[in-house]
């Protein structure tokens, strides 16, 4: 008895730990999209309604378009969203503990007061003051709190994404050379004074000396500069996985350099501050949505660009929507199915993502091994992208929290993603996520309350070699009849700022 009891208790404890935490698989509109849009069947509507401007798609581009139209005095715009929730991949969630992101989770601070994002940020009260050069100073509470990133490697945490510990003299020299190359590009101006790389990219040059970079891979560009240091290459690969769902070998060199150079004001300047909220870019979405009229659960299945008539399916069945102007703010693979004149045209390549929100009752013990908890926590030897802590920015450093875990199917095409996902339900993902977190947090299982998982089948457009500068890409932004287009994939890469830029452009086109 005396000895039996504790062992039994321990066994009970173990079997309890083995049970996987509960949670849900988030519906991201994929099922509805596949069943209603992909089969190509257009129902005959019994009802008709009139709207001024119909914005199809309630992601960032659509909401930005609605926001800008309101600012321009257009009051009869309606956003139609297929899903039950607006925000697209920038949506967020909330628990009793904290709000958290379901996808995109930061923006880069604008460099000058004239940038399009500044009025939105000002409206949110996110701008503290303006520097002497006019650059907005973002509210301290939103500037990513130090330590921003840490990497788990060889049994401890290291501050920053670049692993400096153990770097050889040659590693360091190569890092300096890489920074120098980025500095050169951040200083570069064309004869009209435009930057080589800027966010959004529409502000940057189309000079062939820059656009030629799109013809080679980022890896080939690095090889050409003899930048072969494994630490540096890991950093570049990680950046490509994180921002593009690709690796350096498949990313366009233009996009690879864009990732680093566009964030930098000038040579030697630090990377622009990362601006974040506990719920990531869902905070921006909420601000945009304030001024928009949004109807969710409405799936546009056909758009006639000559007449501006939309055939849609809402909660009551098929309906015809007649609009003065239509803004199609969906990814191109959807636009090219529903817009009549676009049917069958090629679209870009999209990367798949799994995003999980891990709800923790208590944080795992840190054991004092290296850098303390950061906003972004990355495992060097993992195929995952690590996790972001939703309570970091708020300054709640103890007690329950939510970790948002990211996995990008880097380089994988749709078929191999499907193969990898065959039979993977909630339990399988929960096990994968916990095993990944256990690399650095062996006690994490005991502290997890639940894990919610989202699968983004077409999470983001991928800037593959040759895809960032093409006539086909440029043509996709052109209006067709009364139909205008807005989406981040028109930039060839997925960024809040790009989606926002296209939303504003479409609003300008429609409002005039």
């Amino acid at each position, binding site marked *: 008895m*005396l*000895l039996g009891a504790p062992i039994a208790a321990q066994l009970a404890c173990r079997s309890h730990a083995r049970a996987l935490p509960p949670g849900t698989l988030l519906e991201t509109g994929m099922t509805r999209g596949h069943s209603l849009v992909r089969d190509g069947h257009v129902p005959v509507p019994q009802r008709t309604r009139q709207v001024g401007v119909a914005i199809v798609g309630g992601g960032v581009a659509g909401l930005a378009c609605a926001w800008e139209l309101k600012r321009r005095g257009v009051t009869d715009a309606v956003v139609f969203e297929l899903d039950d929730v607006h925000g697209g991949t920038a949506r967020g969630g909330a628990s009793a503990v904290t709000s958290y992101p379901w996808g995109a989770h930061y923006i880069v601070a604008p460099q000058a007061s004239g940038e399009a994002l500044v009025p939105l940020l000002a409206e949110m009260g996110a701008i503290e003051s303006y520097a002497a050069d006019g650059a907005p100073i973002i509210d*301290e*509470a939103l*500037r*990513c*709190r*130090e*330590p*921003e990133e840490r990497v788990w490697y060889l049994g401890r945490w290291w501050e920053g994404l670049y692993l400096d510990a153990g770097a050889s003299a040659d590693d360091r020299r190569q890092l300096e050379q890489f920074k120098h190359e980025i500095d050169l590009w951040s200083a570069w101006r064309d004869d009209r004074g435009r930057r080589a790389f800027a966010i959004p990219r529409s502000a940057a040059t189309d000079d062939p000396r820059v656009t030629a970079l799109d013809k080679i891979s980022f890896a080939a560009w690095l090889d050409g500069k003899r930048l072969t240091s494994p630490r540096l290459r890991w950093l570049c690969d990680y950046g490509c996985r994180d921002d593009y769902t690709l690796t350096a070998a498949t990313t366009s060199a233009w996009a690879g350099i864009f990732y680093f150079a566009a964030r930098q004001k000038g040579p030697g300047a630090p990377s622009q*501050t990362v601006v974040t909220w506990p719920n990531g870019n869902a905070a921006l979405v909420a601000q945009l949505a304030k001024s928009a009229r949004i109807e969710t659960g409405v799936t546009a299945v056909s758009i006639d660009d000559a007449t501006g008539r939309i055939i849609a399916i809402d909660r009551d069945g098929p309906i015809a929507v007649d609009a003065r102007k239509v803004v199609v703010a969906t990814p191109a693979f959807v636009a090219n199915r529903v817009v009549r004149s676009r049917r069958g045209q090629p679209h870009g390549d999209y990367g798949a993502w799994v995003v999980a929100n891990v709800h923790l009752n*208590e944080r795992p013990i840190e054991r004092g091994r290296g850098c*303390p908890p950061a906003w972004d926590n990355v495992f060097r030897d993992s195929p995952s992208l690590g996790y972001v802590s939703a309570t970091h920015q*708020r*300054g*709640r*450093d*103890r*007690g329950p929290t939510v970790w948002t875990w990211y996995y990008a199917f880097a380089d994988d095409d749709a078929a191999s993603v499907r193969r990898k996902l065959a039979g993977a339900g909630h339990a399988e993902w929960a096990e994968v996520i916990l095993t990944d977190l256990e690399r650095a947090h062996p006690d994490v299982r005991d502290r997890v309350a639940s894990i919610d998982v989202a699968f983004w089948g077409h999470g983001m457009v991928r800037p593959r070699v040759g895809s960032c500068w093409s006539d086909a890409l440029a043509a996709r932004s052109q209006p067709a009849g009364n139909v205008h287009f807005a989406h981040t994939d028109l930039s060839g890469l997925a960024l809040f700022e790009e989606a926002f830029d296209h939303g504003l452009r479409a609003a300008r086109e429609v409002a005039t």
Partner: protein
Amino acid sequence: MESLSSSPPPSPAPAADTIRATALYLNVFIVAICGLVYELLAGTLGSYLLGDSVTQFSLVIGLYLSAMGVGAWLSRKLDGELARRFVEIELAVAVVGGLSAPVLFLSFGTVVHFQVVLLAFVSAIGVLVGLELPILMRLLEGQLAFKDLISRVLTFDYIGALAASLMFPLVLVPKLGLVRSSLAMGCANAGVALWGTWLLAPQLAKRVVGLRVRAAIVLIVMIAGVVTADYFSTWAEDEMYADPVVYTKQTPYQRIVVTRGKAGFQLFLNGNLQFSSADEYRYHEALVHPVMAAATAYSGPPKQVLILGGGDGLALREVLTYPTVEHVTLVDLDPAMTSLSRHFPALAELNHHSFDDPRVTLVNDDAMVWLDEHPGQYDAIVVDFPDPNNFALGKLFTKLFYRRVRAHLAPAGAAVVQATSPLFARRSYWCIADTMAAAGLAVHPYHVTVPSFGVWGYVLARVQPFDPPTHVPPHLRFLNDEALAGMFEMPADMTHVPVEINQLDNQALVRYYEREWRRWE
């Protein structure tokens, strides 16, 4: 040993009996050591944890001896199967005595009437130990003449006492610590019990195996206790501190350690000294009275006071000396810390039971988040956090944090911030002062000397520009108007140096602090 036991008894005993008797004397010796060690442990623990060693030792010794008397008196009630009773009593002593120190350590932080638990242990051990000798003597009864029996048993008992009184201060406390010593004595008692099942086998007759198994289990538990005693305190930890560690607790937020030495007791959080009871009055008077004076000068006596940090209740004690104060809200992260301050007798005495004052509202939350989520304005705000030696603390010294403090300050109110040492960590100190200024506060830096800390710095602040205060209440132990005036004069080696502003996205202060204090370690 042979010479002692080989002296011829009136009727010569067989050789086996002689050996058995010798072994039983050895048992007396061990039992005597254990008994005295438990008594010394209880006395030491009582004086460590409750203070006032004369009272504690006197109480423990008196109660223990009288409990032994009770045990001796009860021994006559035990008849039949004396050998079995002896083994069982040894096991009971092993369990109660062996676990006494760990249980007392554990209950200290959580049990309000710790003294009752302590004295209950002392009584229980006393009664059991009081049973031991009479029963042993009765076991040896038939073998010796009464005069020989009593002389030998008492001889070994008193020699054991001497051995224990030498071992305790020279070996046990310094080498094993209190918890391990207690468990080690438990091992010895359990060992005697197990050995006794063989030694007394002829008298035990039947059911020996069951007794043996029980003895073995107790022995294993005690050995396991010795091995895992690190849970309570570690040798390494004991060596970190100059004075004996009397309390340790690993909370989710920090490691709390209390030590007690000649000069009083000290509180450490994560290894950093928070105060020493000998001179904390200098630190806390200098922290609280200038800000109260500054607030009084501009807005009349403060009514609403906010304390951020200060879970030891000592700043609170000073604030509560003002009868004009109507309400104090104290926000401290760690419930274990505030509970300790409230229930740890020595600490509760030092802070004048300030947490029990009806004017006080205690909140256990992170101050950064609490300020953001709770409106309200205060006439005086006291910010008393541990030094910014990590990022979690560093955020409580940022411009964002001071902006939130400013927003909670009544228009004519005043705030004070403990700001590390302007001498040992000059950049850190000025980084705090400049950051407060950058948050829109008018500031006056000042400093004081606290022997345990050295030169220590604070920053006094208001929303509007102001003059440093000139009057503090009379009859304080350290602070008077002359000392107050001197505190605002900065000597040349502590004057301003250019520094970065500490913000959430640079945490400049943590980096300054780390660099500066490393030089002194």
